[in-house]
């Protein structure tokens, strides 16, 4: 036994699993979902587009919360900064090309991510949560104060994005916006799959579990987390910019505590620490909200509350997390 092992020792270690096939499968899942969405709700593309913008925010939150263990109730700061960056670029600087607006959103979000990261990473646990709450309120107040740039509480209106590639205009039916959103989401999703599986992603998962151990390996948790915060900001910025492009208005709500808390709820609902969990949580929460609020606009909040309680009781790892676990266990039992 021992001799066999030593003999093998020099042979290269084969990798246990391959990523590419799974990546393509994931891409296919997203695109199929997008097509199904288009077919099922052809007249409701604005809602679907909005879901995808929020999904980007929730994905971005998953990066810091699910993969790095940072507790935050202020993540909309990154999303809103992206939205305002894109909106201000369009309204005040005449940058109305949708792709350039997204670029502006990425820069705005990343900068906000840097600022938030520097502050939030100074504490852990509950105090960290409080720092994030303080930050989102500061961002919100700042945007309210800078009303000559942001339109204040009236919202930043008058964003008129050019047709995409000069051909596809953003119309009433929202088809262009929908396709634009699907493509952005798919690109970001694939990018994030690469990131979370990369050495850096692994490092972050290590930090989440035991930052001291990472230090003992000569790694700096703070720098890695800060880097993740900037990436997270860029992703949220894409979502914000998408929102600005598709709705052509940016409101203070995009920098609100409410949106931050909702995005956290969606993430935990779907399951932290997995990209599909983040997307699942967003889709389920927002479709559910749309459904019950259309069915009973006056008392839907109770039903949303009941959904959250039910998830904690019956799907403790989130919807996607729990399903994935059950499937894995079944596969394990079958083996």
């Amino acid at each position, binding site marked *: 036994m*021992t001799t066999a*092992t*030593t003999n*093998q*020792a*020099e*042979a*290269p*270690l084969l*990798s*246990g*699993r391959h*990523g590419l096939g799974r990546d393509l499968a994931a891409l296919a899942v997203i695109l199929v979902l997008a097509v199904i969405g288009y077919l099922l709700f052809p007249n409701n593309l604005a809602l679907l587009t909005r879901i995808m913008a929020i999904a980007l925010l929730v994905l971005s939150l998953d990066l810091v919360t699910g993969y790095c263990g940072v507790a935050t109730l202020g993540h909309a700061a990154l999303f809103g900064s992206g939205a305002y960056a894109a909106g201000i670029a369009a309204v005040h600087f005449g940058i109305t090309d949708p792709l350039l607006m997204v670029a502006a959103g990425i820069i705005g979000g990343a900068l906000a991510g840097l600022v938030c990261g520097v502050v939030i990473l100074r504490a852990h646990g509950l105090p960290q949560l409080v720092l994030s709450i303080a930050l989102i309120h500061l961002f919100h107040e700042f945007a309210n104060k800078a009303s000559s740039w942001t339109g204040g509480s009236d919202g930043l209106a008058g964003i008129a994005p050019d047709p995409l590639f000069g051909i596809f205009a953003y119309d009433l039916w929202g088809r262009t916006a929908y396709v634009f959103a699907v493509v952005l989401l798919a690109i970001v999703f694939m990018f994030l799959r*690469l*990131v979370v*599986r*990369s*050495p*850096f*992603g*692994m*490092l972050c*998962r*290590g930090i989440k*579990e*035991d930052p*001291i*151990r990472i*230090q*003992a*390996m*000569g*790694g*700096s948790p703070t*720098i*890695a987390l800060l*880097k993740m915060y900037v*990436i997270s900001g860029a992703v949220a910025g894409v979502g914000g910019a998408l929102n600005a492009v598709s709705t052509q208005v940016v409101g203070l709500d995009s920098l609100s505590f409410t949106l931050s808390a909702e995005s956290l709820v969606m993430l935990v609902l779907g399951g932290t620490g997995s990209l599909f969990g983040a997307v699942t949580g967003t889709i389920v929460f927002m479709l559910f909200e749309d459904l019950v609020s259309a069915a009973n606009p006056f008392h839907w909040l109770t039903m949303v509350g009941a959904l959250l309680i039910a998830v904690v009781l019956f799907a403790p790892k989130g919807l996607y997390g729990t399903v994935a676990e059950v499937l894995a266990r079944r596969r394990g039992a079958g083996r």
Partner: protein
Amino acid sequence: MSAIFEVRNLKRSFGGLAVTNDVSLSMAPGDRVALIGPNGAGKTTFVNLVTGNLEPDAGEVRIGGESVTNVNAIDRVRRGLVRSFQVTRLFQDMTPAEHVALAILQRDGRAGRMFGNFLSMPGVMAEVGVLIGKLGLRDLAHRPVREIAYGQQRLLEIAMALALKPRVLLLDEPAAGVPQSDTGRIERALADLPDDLAVLMIEHDMDLVFRFAKRVIVLAAGTVIFDGSPADVTKDPRVREAYLGSYADASSAA
């Protein structure tokens, strides 16, 4: 031969109690030193002072002739001072291959890379294969850590430490908590450590100490009371007193 690792007059007290009191030691490449002492002798504090997790009140730590007293814990690791933990600190959902690969990339300053999966980095995986193979963990390379036995987790700790290519290795009770049947593998792994590496092992198990160490340092009440060959340690009256006599006697003797 010049010292690769030196500690000079290290002091640290907590609220008036000197937990590390004027400790000095020096090691050359290839040294195999065991640090022993009764409970409460200040071994853990000493390790934390050396690794930079705790700041000393006075004294100096040097690696390769350079003072690292004002260098933080992370940079001390990068300068070749690596430790293992008394209780394993591993990432439960990751595989041994991932652990070791992460350590290798960390050493090369590539752990921040955002693209590529190291399972598809041939250079890294070859090294992982060698390290893991040496420690007999090949079959487990792709199983999550929480599924593998504690003894093997201890081996993985050693593999990770080696992956960082240290110049000085601090082993904090490398066999603690391992069932008797598995200690043999750990001992063999310790025996196979690179020849030019300076190893300081903190250990309780005297059998292991005698088989491994060429030199023994005894710490009691924060002070070095013996520094010499394993053969002499049991004969030293002060060591006998520290272990067999009461704690109070030992400290008054020091």
